[in-house]
């Protein structure tokens, strides 16, 4: 079955990509399977300089989900370009760089840096990280700021830009429209919902950063709703994510309005999650009467 999807800058052999931050730069999971099987890889966030991230504990388990507050730990954009991208580029898969920052200037710097390499096929503009004190989520909850940073990055970058939206907003359509107007080539949604867990014995938040981002199946209904809402009013492609654990989840995202998907938390439970989903996908599409991914994308307009 033809699982391929064409998106701006991305010729995906299938619509499945590991989500940013849940797959590092692919090195660890390359010990589990051939990364060429993947539609693409969304790399861990890159910032201008190395970031050490937040104190630990950085993760906590919740019902059908988890909280994380990694705090964008990464070796800095230049080292990613020098060390990580070349290693990933050996695989026959698309590479998407996730870029983050605490200021417009930092986003601009990081986006421009990726112009150095042809091996990165698209940028994912992370304006939605809830786990850093400065930047990140501010850009993702204020449409004016979101528009501004998108515009700056579009201007400086020679790659298609997918803007990653935060679900911690009242009106997701407004955010999507703002970045579409600013020239975004696509959307990536959703990032994590901000949450907290109290550690009863110490009577304190379990995550050292106090709050963390909620991911996993718990948030899937929120992701589906937001993608559905945005799809009714915005025409640029959507990379969907939030709680995808199996191929039926993928189909749910596609019908709701996504054009490709990313798998995050599921990798932690099952390091083979992405390949398992890729393998299941044809069977599941067939079960529900679809003949290809394009078929799902074309028909959904009629049925939803």
């Amino acid at each position: 079955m033809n699982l391929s999807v064409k998106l701006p800058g991305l010729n995906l052999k299938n619509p499945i990509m590991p989500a940013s931050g849940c797959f590092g730069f692919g090195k660890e999971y390359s010990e589990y399977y051939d990364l060429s099987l993947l539609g693409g890889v969304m790399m861990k966030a890159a910032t201008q300089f190395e970031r050490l991230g937040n104190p630990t504990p950085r993760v906590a388990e919740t019902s059908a989900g988890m909280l994380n507050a990694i705090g964008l730990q990464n070796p800095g954009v230049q080292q990613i370009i020098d060390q990580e991208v070349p290693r990933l580029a050996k695989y026959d898969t698309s590479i998407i760089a996730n870029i983050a920052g605490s200021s417009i200037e930092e986003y601009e710097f990081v986006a421009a840096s990726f112009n150095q390499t042809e091996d990165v096929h698209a940028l994912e503009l992370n304006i939605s990280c809830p786990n850093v004190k400065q930047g990140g989520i501010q850009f993702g909850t204020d449409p004016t700021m979101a528009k501004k940073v998108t515009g700056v990055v579009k201007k400086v970058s020679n790659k298609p830009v997918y803007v990653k939206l935060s679900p911690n907003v009242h009106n997701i359509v407004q955010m999507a429209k703002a970045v579409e107007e600013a020239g975004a080539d696509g959307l990536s949604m959703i990032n994590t919902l901000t949450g907290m867990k109290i550690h009863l014995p110490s009577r304190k938040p379990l995550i050292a950063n106090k709050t963390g981002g909620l991911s996993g199946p718990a948030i899937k209904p929120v992701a589906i709703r937001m993608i559905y809402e945005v799809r009714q009013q915005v025409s640029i492609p959507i990379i969907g994510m939030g709680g995808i654990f199996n191929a039926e989840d993928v189909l749910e995202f596609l019908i709701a309005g996504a054009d490709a998907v990313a798998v995050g938390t599921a990798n932690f439970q099952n390091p083979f999650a992405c390949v398992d989903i890729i393998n299941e996908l044809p069977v599941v599409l067939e079960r529900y009467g679809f003949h290809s991914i394009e078929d799902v994308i074309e028909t959904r307009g009629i049925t939803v």
Partner: protein
Amino acid sequence: MRKRETMSVLSVTQIATDTFEMIAENSRISEQAKPGQFVHIYIPGHTLRRPISIAAVDPSTASVSLVFKAIGEGTKQLSNYQSGMQIDVLGPNGNGFSIDISEDERVLLIGGGVGVPPMYHLAKRLSEETSIDIVSVLGFQTKNAVFYEEEFNRIGETYIVTDDGSYGTHGVVTDILGQFKDRTQYFSCGPLPMLRAVKSKLSHIPGKVSLEERMGCGVGACMACVLPTVDNHYKKICSEGPVFVAEEVVL
């Protein structure tokens, strides 16, 4: 390439208060595991896997022992596993203690609570593969929490310390470390405050410590489980640890 692994449960036995020993079968893990390494266990209904140290292996029977305390939902579920059940595991994960030690070393093993199992694995392997002189100091909260005393005794001199004095020496492990001035190296695993105290008390000899942190992936990809190093960086406990040279890390 790493593969999907399952362990088949052979037995689960309570060996101390809330503490269980599980013996399970997996030939690859039993052959490859180094002391200090862990298995990352999928427990149905839970988003995240649970890391549990490998407490011993017996390649001749393809068996792997785990010793764990049932503290939360995951470990409680695990303690109810029946013989014959299949467990989805990743492992052996992490780096482990190297047992490539010169024969004239006199090592000191210091384990606290659920830090004892990896120390046992180390002791057992050292005794099986070398003739190094081993002294072990094991700390527990109370008498009923003590386990593996016999097993350690079979290997070498062993001292038990309990917080409440209900068994062995009353106090914490560091209270008696002064007795072992002849030791040339130490290995330790246990709660962070204990490791901190051990490291400062034994700063005159080289040591290795095994650490715990809450994990996401357990394979080195998510950066959840980091530990600050003295050169102002972080190391990942799941993949670059759990065993670290004591003086290189900030406890």
